[in-house]
């Protein structure tokens, strides 16, 4: 995997212009592309044995590409398509059951990963209630599969359950 593949994926699936990623550089391991802030020091630190650098951005899962949770949280606000606004109740069901029914709607272009945008609390203005949680997998006809890390899903349940 390389930078072109990563940037092209985010452009095609989420409508994020490649120019948004100009201040960054990309590094890949076997199955993960990392995004790191470009810096004049990159050459300086090249001699160090690095455990990792930057933020996981995209992973190869079998033969598909999957955006990472942290990348969806960090760059989700730039996405123009395949973002779904999900309310508290269906999100709780998604996190507990792992899958819920979901109408395709105009923002979803087809099967694949969608960015979860929690509308919380629902009464707030759009700017204040948009919280980018991570990604889910949308499949035809009308299936939404939770792809949040287990710890995150458990955390969301604990945070949003009021009882």
């Amino acid at each position: 995997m390389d930078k072109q593949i990563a940037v092209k994926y985010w452009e095609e699936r989420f409508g994020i212009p490649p120019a948004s990623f100009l201040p960054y550089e990309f590094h890949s391991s076997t199955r993960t592309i990392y995004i790191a802030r470009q810096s004049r020091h990159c050459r300086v630190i090249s001699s160090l044995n690095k455990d990792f650098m930057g933020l996981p951005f995209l992973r190869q899962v079998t033969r598909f590409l999957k955006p990472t949770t942290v990348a969806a949280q960090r760059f989700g606000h730039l996405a123009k398509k395949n973002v779904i606004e999900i309310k508290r109740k269906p999100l709780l069901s998604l996190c507990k059951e792992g899958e819920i029914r979901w109408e395709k709607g105009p923002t979803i272009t087809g099967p694949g990963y969608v960015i979860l945008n929690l509308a919380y609390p629902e009464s707030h203005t759009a700017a204040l209630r948009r919280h980018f949680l991570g990604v889910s997998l949308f499949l035809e006809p009308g299936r939404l599969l939770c792809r949040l890390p287990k710890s995150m899903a458990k955390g969301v349940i604990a945070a949003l359950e009021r009882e």
Partner: protein
Amino acid sequence: MTQWPPSEYFYFIPEPEKYIEHLHHPLPPYIRINPIKAPADKIMHLLKDEGVFLKKLPVDFFYKAACGKELGNLLGYHLGYIYPQALTSAMPVIALNPKPGDLILDMCAAPGGKTTHMAQLMGDQGTIVANDRSFGRLTALSANIKRCGITCVVITQYKGEHFPYGEHFDKILLDAPCSGEGKYRIGRDGRLLFSISGRTNLPAIQKGLIVRAFDLLKPGGTLVYSTCTLNPEENEGVVDALLKKRNALVLGWNPPLRWHRGIDHFKGHAYHALVTGCRRFYPHEANSVGFFVAKIVKPKQNG
């Protein structure tokens, strides 16, 4: 009953009776908000809606938090909007004064509170090399960096005292392993909580680390040495050892919390006059963990 603090500490702890009384109360929770993940007003609204009451503090981005549940169970925590962190632990970072574009080494970085704070002050621009020798602690460090959405950090796993020479850094933070006396509390049963027992010679380790850190600095660069202990042998004693071995300067600075100067002697040892430029923060005055911070500069013409 616990014999704490030791009698030789009484001369430098301000109002020691107040310190002893303070030890019986739990420290309040503090958070730092993380605008890398979302605008501050959005974070504040979410926390308010989650039932968190926040009190503004004289340290940028830090708040005293009161809420009915663990901070780690808040949605804001899982989204990386907040980092629960002792108020005084901001002091080493403020002393280092990280700026966008800096090349910084965080020599003992895990679990990442100061690393992520520095990245935030740098606007996630520049490079922070976050190093820690312990694999287990690196897991927590990388999890916190990811949770906070930071892209300017490189993680390495060297023993601090063996961190390779090569390029030199603009700024280095050495938040050294220490006995943690600044965290001590006394439980309801009169026992000392959070105390660490062992035979490790911490001052020897700290002296090895501070010399290496100083040698990794660019001429004109800044090193901040900090601990969360009250013990002068791990604080002024370590800075004194560096001043004897290298041409280093200790700079005074004005912290936003109540502070005291470094002490000039302990147990019959007189320290270098410059160590009084160090800053001490006491738990009963800051209502947080006790800290020691030394801001050290490598002169441009280093002999």
